[in-house]
């Protein structure tokens, strides 16, 4: 791996401009009162001091994309005979996501097991994934909603990133995590980090230390399965949920989608768009039957999937990166940590009776 570099704050914009000359750069930008990832244009201010409201998920997994576009071609000799011509849609552009936090990037590792797994490789996802680099900024301090350390990560976790930037006085230590990342370090604006690399390491360790003891969510994997039929429990913990999709759409690890066709005359598109399991429509069947008719069923799925079903399939890995967006952006402050903790502590009534 290449040696660690340092960039001072006053050169950061110049470096971004330089990078933007080589590829598309997506960086956190303040829009109104929110911070979202948007294409970086030269000279534009980027918001690196706080975690973005939304993670950079859409860069690799857009909120909607055309899986295919098609034209119907009528045979002029026989109008009833119609051919369908498919038009290509995948044309990813080399992209650098600059300024995400470790949790935002780590979400794609959860995606990878699904879209780049043994059984299925999603060409749309893979094309973008391969074309995208991540220059991640380590966190110095956890927020109240953060719990990355409880799901196998840390505020300075570089897993999944190509570059790791650690803020130290007046600038960032920049370390390459992947070979692709190392190529980005070839800039005269960067200087050798020298002793600053140790400073950076200490910064990251301190941040992790300050988060305190991680919580062990491991037992939830089994416990949530046991609670599957305990609708009373789920009704209780979902009572205040308003069944919107804020948690899901802001989650760096939620990867579910819907597919709809949009036709206009003799042309059409097959659209893949984000879907979320909090929505009634998610499991609505054509017959009108819905196996998850209430928000209790749906919240059970969201929590169950992240802490039990996914880990069951993928070596116990929890499908959550602990970014806390689902907590702090929830209109009613539903706290997934609290639900999982409650579930782990839950004693079925019969057992309670016996214990007395």
């Amino acid at each position, binding site marked *: 791996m290449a040696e660690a570099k340092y960039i001072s704050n006053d050169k950061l914009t110049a470096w971004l401009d330089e990078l933007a000359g080589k590829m598309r750069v997506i960086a956190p930008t303040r829009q109104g009162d929110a911070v979202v990832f948007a294409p970086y244009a030269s000279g534009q201010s980027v918001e690196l001091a706080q975690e973005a409201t939304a993670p950079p998920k859409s860069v690799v997994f857009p909120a909607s994309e055309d899986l295919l576009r098609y034209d*119907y071609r*009528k045979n*002029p000799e026989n*109008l*009833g005979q119609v051919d369908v011509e498919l038009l290509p849609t995948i044309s990813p552009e080399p992209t650098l996501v600059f300024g995400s936090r470790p949790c935002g990037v780590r979400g794609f590792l959860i995606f990878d097991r699904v879209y780049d797994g043994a059984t299925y490789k999603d060409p749309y996802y893979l094309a973008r994934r391969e074309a995208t680099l991540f220059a991640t900024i380590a966190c110095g301090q956890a927020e109240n909603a953060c719990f990355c350390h409880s799901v196998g990560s840390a505020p300075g976790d570089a897993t999944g990133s190509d570059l790791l930037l650690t803020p130290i006085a007046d600038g960032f230590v920049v370390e390459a995590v992947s070979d692709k990342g190392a190529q980005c370090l070839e800039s005269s604006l960067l200087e050798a980090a020298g002793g600053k690399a140790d400073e950076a390491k200490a910064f990251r360790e301190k941040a992790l230390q300050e988060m305190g003891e991680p919580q062990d969510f491991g037992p939830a994997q089994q416990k949530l399965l046991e609670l599957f039929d305990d609708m009373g429990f789920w009704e209780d913990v979902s009572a205040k949920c308003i069944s919107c999709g804020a948690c899901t759409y802001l989650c760096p690890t939620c990867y579910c989608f819907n597919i709809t066709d949009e*036709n*206009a*005359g*003799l*042309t059409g598109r097959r659209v893949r768009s984000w879907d979320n399991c909090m929505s009634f429509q998610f499991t609505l069947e054509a017959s*009108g039957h819905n196996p998850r008719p209430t928000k209790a069923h749906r919240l059970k799925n969201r929590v169950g999937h992240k802490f039990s079903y996914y880990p069951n399939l993928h070596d116990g890995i929890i499908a959550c990166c602990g970014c806390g967006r689902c907590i702090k952006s929830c209109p009613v402050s539903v706290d997934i940590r609290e639900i999982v903790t409650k579930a782990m502590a839950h004693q079925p009534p019969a057992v309670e009776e016996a214990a007395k």
Partner: protein
Amino acid sequence: MKIGVFVCHCGSNIGGTVDAARVAEASREFPDVVFTSDTMYACSEPGQDGIIQAIKDNQLDGVVVSSCTPRMHEPTFRRTVERAGLNRFMFEMANIREHVSWIGKDKEANTNKAIELTGIAVEKLRRDQPLFAKQFDINKRVLVIGGGVAGIQAALDCADGDREVVLVERESTIGGKMAKLDKTFPTVDCSSCILGPKMVDVAQHPKIQLYAMAEVEEIGGYVGNYEVKIRRKAPYVNWDLCTGCGLCMEKCPSKKSTDRFNEQVGSTTAINIPFPQAIPKKAVIDPKFCIKLTKGKCGICAKICPTKAIVFDQREEIISESVGAIVAATGYDLFDISKYGEYGGGRLPDVITGLQYERLLSASGPTGGHVKRPSDGKEPKTIVFVQCVGSRDKSVDRPYCSGFCCMYTAKQAILTKDHIPDSSSYVFYMDIRSPGKMYDEFTRRAMEEYGTQYVRGRVSMIYPQGDKLMVRGADTLMGTQVEVEADLVVLAAGAEAAVGAPQLAEKLRISYDKYGFFMESHPKLRPVETNTAGVYLAGSCQGPKDIPASVAQGSAAAAKVLALFAKDKLENDPMISLVDMKRCVGCGKCVRVCPFGAIKEIDVRGEPKAEVIETVCQGCGLCTATCPQGAIQLSHFTDNQILAEVNALCQL
């Protein structure tokens, strides 16, 4: 889906400014279109045969005809596609004549527009569903509301057509306003002599069930199957026993009762039969004046009644009737003359309405046909008639003409001269409105033969001077002020909607204008129909009318009822709203706005849901525009159909 598009040249009507062949050619590029052609006259027999042939040859599922307005030939082509075996709703029309070729000369723009209109018709057709009419039974009984001359005529015609009639009358006798008239214009027939026999026919007709002193309380159901609740007020007399002998009236000690029949000229007894020819001729006790009912003592009538018909503790009752059609014939009421304070109506006893004057002229009236003025019983010598009191006057919110006042004023002037040969009559008028057979001649007679002095102008005030009434007004023809010293003033009070008309309209779910008159379906072409199927109008409830017009409407309404009843089953129009039960959240907004009461709330497994009563729905689609989640959709005009039309025009 396989769609055929047929573009009509309509001779040169379309072909002159639209390149029909190019429209047909361009239509080949629309989705699902497998066949197109242009044809000289699509509606002609060869044109229709061509469509049928093409449907068969190409196994078409739907047809678009681009030609004239669907308001003209949609029914024609629906039958055409039906003949070819398609459902008649698998058909759409693009109007490229009235909306294109006839309104512009730019052939290129027209052709482009015609192609686009054909395109949206194709997009709509792609989302059409076959629709099927529902058949339902029809109850061949008719309810007639109101027993005036219009209602009597409608009831008799229906009954003569061998249909059972339920006739509901608010007063204790039928006859309405006509029964109160002395003579009728322009023939000067005795009103009761021509109306009386009809009233008797009503009483004797085996097919007519008459409820007098009754009002419609509630109406449910729909055309062919109405359920009606009738509130029958208590006459305190057992009408099954009462023979109408009138002994009770002779002996009743309470003689200051309101005389409604005689328009309160004088008073009558608390137990009363309104007039000798009343139908039914039964006694009624006015509980406001009956000494027994107000003070608990008396009961003389009960003692002398030969059939023991008096029942002081009688209660009103609710009667249910099932009918298939309803004729509203609720007539009119008179404008309240006291609203013109300057005329002294209601304050000066000798300022009376025209209808009160009729009672003074009538031989069966309170004065026995001798004209005596109410204040002192003297025979008036100078009589002033004032027209348009409560007609054609925006200041009292009565801008319309009551229609018949000019004529009855002329009649009353003539009758006055007959009764009191040495009298002189003055008529203050705005215009003389006498468009009718022999009408204008009649008013001329009043002026020319009977010497009635017509003064064109409004009366500004009427005030008492000694035992005379000073009538001050303007003669706009002479441009002078006029003052007449009168003994009696007769105000031609205008007609207004009957008391309670708007409430009845709401029960009938028909509309009414701002004055309370019922709205007909079409002012020219559907004058006795309403927009509620199975409800018809007769007489002045629809607007002021004279006797012949009322009778004609009564017969017309009866003809409509008999035509309806000629069928054994009714079919609904299948372009109605339907509820997607899965998506309905039972918020009830559709139920609230439906103008026809065609949506009801039902319970589906404990959840409220809306349901359309298919035979009542008229297909306006107001519910569809109201439902926030689009769970109720108007068939053939669904959201998706209209959105597809919008998308075809706007997107991409």
